[in-house]
């Protein structure tokens, strides 16, 4: 097997685990997400459990992985190096939060929901991709 094949297989496994996690946790249901964000209504704690166990698992797993020194199928760990809190980071996060609160979709669940395709979901995905292109334009 050449390295592209191995990397591609590794990418598929990561995506599959992620998609299974989103489906089993119910994050592919915007009502679950909006129920969590609706702190003044009938609050749904599910997302808190999802984020909590995901962060906990990653926190422990990353330390084991970093201790190894390098990734299995790639030369080095590619980690963000920027440290400063700038307007682009915080403004972008604020805009994302508004869109998330309006729809109950962040990028992962929106894409993972393609199997249950509907017109509103198509609209969201097309607009999200357009937003990514505009952000790249602004940033460059």
């Amino acid at each position: 097997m050449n390295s592209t094949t191995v990397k591609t297989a590794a990418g598929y496994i990561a995506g599959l685990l992620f998609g299974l996690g989103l489906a089993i946790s119910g994050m592919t249901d915007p009502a679950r997400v909006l129920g969590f964000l609706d702190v003044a209504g009938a609050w749904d704690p599910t997302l808190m459990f999802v984020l909590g166990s995901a962060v906990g698992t990653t926190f422990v797993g990353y330390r084991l992985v970093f201790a190894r020194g390098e990734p299995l199928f790639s030369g080095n760990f590619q980690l963000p190096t920027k440290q400063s809190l700038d307007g682009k980071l915080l403004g972008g996060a604020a805009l994302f939060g508004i869109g998330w609160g309006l729809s109950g979709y962040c990028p992962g669940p929106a894409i993972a929901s393609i199997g249950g395709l509907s017109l509103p979901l198509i609209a969201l995905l097309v607009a999200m991709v357009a937003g990514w292109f505009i952000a790249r334009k602004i940033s460059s």
Partner: protein
Amino acid sequence: MDWIASLQGLIGGVLIGLSAVWLMGALGRIAGISGIIGNLITLRPKGDSAWRLAFLVGLVSGPLVIMAMGGGLGNVVDAPGAVIGAPAGGVPLMLIAGLLVGLGTGLGSGCTSGHGVCGLARLSTRSMAATGVFLITAIVTVYVTRHMIGGGV
């Protein structure tokens, strides 16, 4: 409280965490959806696209696997056997929301997975700040649409 829903949340979260750990351990990459797929679509980086496309296919196939197993492992509100919930609004609202999600995660270099899961696990200051900001604006947005405008989305 719905304990089964919460338990499924915990299990799903562990799988998402394992995905992030695997991707870092295997390829040295952050499991941020907006980064992996946004860059795949807008940049199509040479020699660095195949694993991103495979990740995308895997992400979409996860819920399909649960559906093929009969949907009993899904966790849609008030819909046993369902895996994918219905959108919370029509096309116009989703166009606005999608644009904000794309623009915001593009400018802010990450979303719930990249900042919220991987960034917090790395104790990154930028990710902690971004996660705090998008959680607050999302909660305020839901408050305004559901409790101030009324009827909601």
